[in-house]
């Protein structure tokens, strides 16, 4: 009898790290099942699920960028504005008649440069907290975007430019119907998230990003150039926001002044729901993906059920608080105080 209990106990303890890693996926699964039960005909249909992926496509890029910044115990409030500025520059170059490969490259470069500005501001200007630097650039980048575009939408891009955001991969060769296509953005999400996972978990720089978040003094003492890594991290975050702009350009066929407004908050929310810690050093790429999915599915499900968007706000807020509370409880179990 006693023996059995010990066994059970150790099984529970052994399960903790797995729960730690994959718990968020269980939550995602529960949500999918619940939504399926509530909307059996529509929710799990090909059309609806591809719609969800299209909707979260650019948000997932912002969330992933903000995530690596949060891992360093930083924050980037300017991602929405970086995306908007990149989108506007893309629209202007496209209107000016530049070749499609230049138009595609432009938002990526602009995004990375904007991120680099954040990185240098935090390290070289020694801003007391990334919150302040990126709050400043939140205004600066959006203002610049409006200045160069005159604050009006610019529409109409070529097919090549729209490919990532709007492209369809035909699956009729698999015996599926014509309407059952794969959005190109799904492939992009999968590739970018996989590459980021490899980068963070299997390269030295990725390991150092986690180390900086865990203890920047330890990183410095280990001879790691913390400032250099931070500039890389913020630049990568901006680069991903540039990808977001490219996807958004494809989806909407237009550069518009309100693009990415408040998107930084959604990105931060997705990271937090996905288990990233504001104190840095904690969180996984898989978690961010789950966080983005949870927010996307919640919005989609509530829309399908015709729930008002005000309720959506209340629910997303509640999930953020609950997700972090679960994290607090988990930490009580796992760590020495």
């Amino acid at each position: 009898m006693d023996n059995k209990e010990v066994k059970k106990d150790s099984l529970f303890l052994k399960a903790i790290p797995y729960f730690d890693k994959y718990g968020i996926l269980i939550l995602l699964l529960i949500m999918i099942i619940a939504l399926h039960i509530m909307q059996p005909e529509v929710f799990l249909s090909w059309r609806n699920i591809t719609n969800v992926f299209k909707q979260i496509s650019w948000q997932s890029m912002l969330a992933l960028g903000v995530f690596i910044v949060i891992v360093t115990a930083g924050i980037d409030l300017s991602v929405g504005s970086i995306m908007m500025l990149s989108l506007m520059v893309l629209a202007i170059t496209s209107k000016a008649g530049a070749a499609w490969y230049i138009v595609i490259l432009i938002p990526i470069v602009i995004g990375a440069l904007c991120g680099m500005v954040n990185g240098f501001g935090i390290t070289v200007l020694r801003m007391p907290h990334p919150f302040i630097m990126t709050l400043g650039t939140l205004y600066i980048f959006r203002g610049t975007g409006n200045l160069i575009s005159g604050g009006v939408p610019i529409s109409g891009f070529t097919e090549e430019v729209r490919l990532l955001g709007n492209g369809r991969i035909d699956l009729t060769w698999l015996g599926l119907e014509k309407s059952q296509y794969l959005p190109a953005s799904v492939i992009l999400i999968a590739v970018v998230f996989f590459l980021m996972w490899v980068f963070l978990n299997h390269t030295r720089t990725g390991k150092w990003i986690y180390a900086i978040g865990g203890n920047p003094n330890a990183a410095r003492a280990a001879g790691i150039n913390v400032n250099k890594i931070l500039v890389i991290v913020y630049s990568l975050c901006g680069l991903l926001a540039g990808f977001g702009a490219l996807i958004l350009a494809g989806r909407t066929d237009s550069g518009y002044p309100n693009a990415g407004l408040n998107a930084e908050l959604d990105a931060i929310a997705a990271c937090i729901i996905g288990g990233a810690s504001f104190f840095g050093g904690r969180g996984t790429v898989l978690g961010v993906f789950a966080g983005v999915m949870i927010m996307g599915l919640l919005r989609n499900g509530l829309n399908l059920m015709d729930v008002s968007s005000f309720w959506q706000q209340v629910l997303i807020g509640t999930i953020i608080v609950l997700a972090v509370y679960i994290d607090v409880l988990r930490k009580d179990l796992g760590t020495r105080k």
Partner: protein
Amino acid sequence: MISSNKVILEAKNISKYFGTITALENVNLSVREGECLGVVGDNGAGKTTLMKVLSGLYKPSKGELYFNGNKEVLESPRDSQNLGLEMVYQDLALAGNLPIGENIFLGREPTKNLGFFKMLDYKKIKEMSEAHLEKLKIHVKSADQKVEELSGGQRQAIAIARATAFNSKLVIMDEPTAALAIKEVGKVLDLINGLKKIGVSVIIISHRMDDIFAVCDRVTALFQGTNFAESELSKTSRDEVIGWIMGKK
């Protein structure tokens, strides 16, 4: 004890000024191979400044450093590390969110090539750190355990393991037992004695006479930024050393 006569580090006439403040004035210090030197002194006596000069974090205003008899100018802690000197910081300088093995190799991780890319070699990190911990007789459940799950004494042991993982010849420890529970102090002191046995020299800064008298071969006292007194441990007493700290001979 078994210290040879080979001097591995010598500091000659070191002075360090911060503006008009004199932190160190003509300080001399030397460490032999496999020797443990205790550095004592009141707060503000210049102990930590001297250690930062030795590790290359500060450049001395005057004076010279000799490693194995060769004069060296240190530009950064990296330089002293390359010469075999490692520092264990008072705040331990470990990343709690990372496992033990990754902390030991932080900044110097072994990699393997995958096409053009250099990927972390987790297997090697685990094997090498477990072998190293075994050598130092540090017992932990696994090198995969996160540092934040360890006790203060275990963390101190990991910090020391980190400092000695790359064939260092000299380890400087700043108050290695200050934050520890009493039963863990003994383990850390055993570890220091173990280092001496494998020929690693140790400089230990401590306020605790128990520590100094448990592991050191020689003790030197700083007072107001100058050499005040020095003796083989066998030729002095606790009361005398405490007197030196207060500035009395």
